């Protein structure tokens, strides 16, 4: 069955084919939410996620000529997005965690409270506590390990996908993920959380 997704993907996979403004518009509509979500989970800031999503598609449009079709379009887009987040993180290295743990804690909590309104209040509370602890624990790992960790457990991406997005070997992704999970678990254990 031919879907918009497959049409768009095949049209961009062929490097010889000219990507028109219309096909790029389709791609944007298809991947806009996911790109935003990944950026959002990495930066934890609505406005910044919005700005970086716009920047991501702008760069993608400008780099259309260099896309050789050797990976999926969404992988390519997410690679641009993750690079943008990384570049942004270099200039504002600590702001994300300050917002997450400190100043904007209430803001994050309110989001999760809204989200967890459906399950029972106890489950909601527990999940929120778990998440807060995990986010705090992630402070102990490197930026790349954090990205891998979040792509894996928040975005449920496969190791191969993560490797494609970050331009790493699967073995390296696996090793860094293992280190990140060990560190997170260690921090959580110290807090006698689990």
């Amino acid at each position, binding site marked *: 069955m031919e879907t918009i997704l497959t049409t768009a993907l095949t049209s961009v996979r062929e490097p010889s084919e000219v990507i028109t403004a219309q096909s790029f*518009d389709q791609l*944007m*509509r298809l991947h*806009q*939410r996911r790109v*935003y*979500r990944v950026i*959002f*989970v990495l930066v934890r800031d609505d406005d910044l*996620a*919005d700005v970086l*999503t*716009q*920047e991501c*598609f*702008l760069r993608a*449009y*400008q780099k259309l000529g260099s896309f050789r079709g050797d990976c999926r379009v969404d992988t390519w887009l997410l690679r641009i997005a993750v690079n943008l987040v990384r570049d942004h993180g270099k200039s504002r290295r600590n702001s994300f965690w300050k917002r997450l743990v400190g100043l904007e804690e209430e803001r994050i909590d309110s*989001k*999760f409270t*809204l*989200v*967890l309104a459906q399950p029972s209040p106890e489950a909601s509370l527990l*999940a929120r506590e*778990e*998440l807060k602890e*995990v986010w705090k624990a992630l402070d102990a790992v490197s930026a790349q390990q954090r990205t891998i960790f979040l792509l*894996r*457990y*928040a*975005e*449920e991406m496969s190791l191969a996908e993560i490797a494609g997005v970050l331009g790493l070997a699967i*073995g*390296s992704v*696996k*090793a860094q*993920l*293992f280190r990140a*999970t*060990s560190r*997170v*678990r260690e921090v959580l254990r110290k807090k006698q959380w*689990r």
Partner: protein
Amino acid sequence: MEMIRRLKRNVPEEMFIADDRHMGETLRHLPGLTRQASERPDEYWEKQHSAIWDRIFSAQLHATPASPRLAWAGIAAVLALAMTLLFVGSASEPAKQVQNQNGSDHELLLAVERAVQIDGPEALEPAALLAQEINGNNQTHSTDKGKQNHED
């Protein structure tokens, strides 16, 4: 050293799978939470979509204020002008310098002669004689030339 690095890099498969599964189970709420936390109304996406196109058009507009051909033509024109000015300037300068030098020499001689004729000091007598002699030569040259011209 390299062996330790390899061991660190190569996590045993079973250990990794168990660890990954356990963490996935621990964080089972995370995907749903992030999805719902990043959900926005349709208007938001439309607005963002328009903003992206605005930025694309704006970037294109700023990236190409003039076509590359026009830019190169401008550069070439400026270079040509600079070269012309350089050559014209360097060619006319020596001639001007010679003219100026001749003119100033003649004026100096006249000034010395005038000063001596008026009432010059004794020390300037050799200079006055020299000036007279040069002037005399110039006059004979010019009269010779004049004769030649008349003969022509």
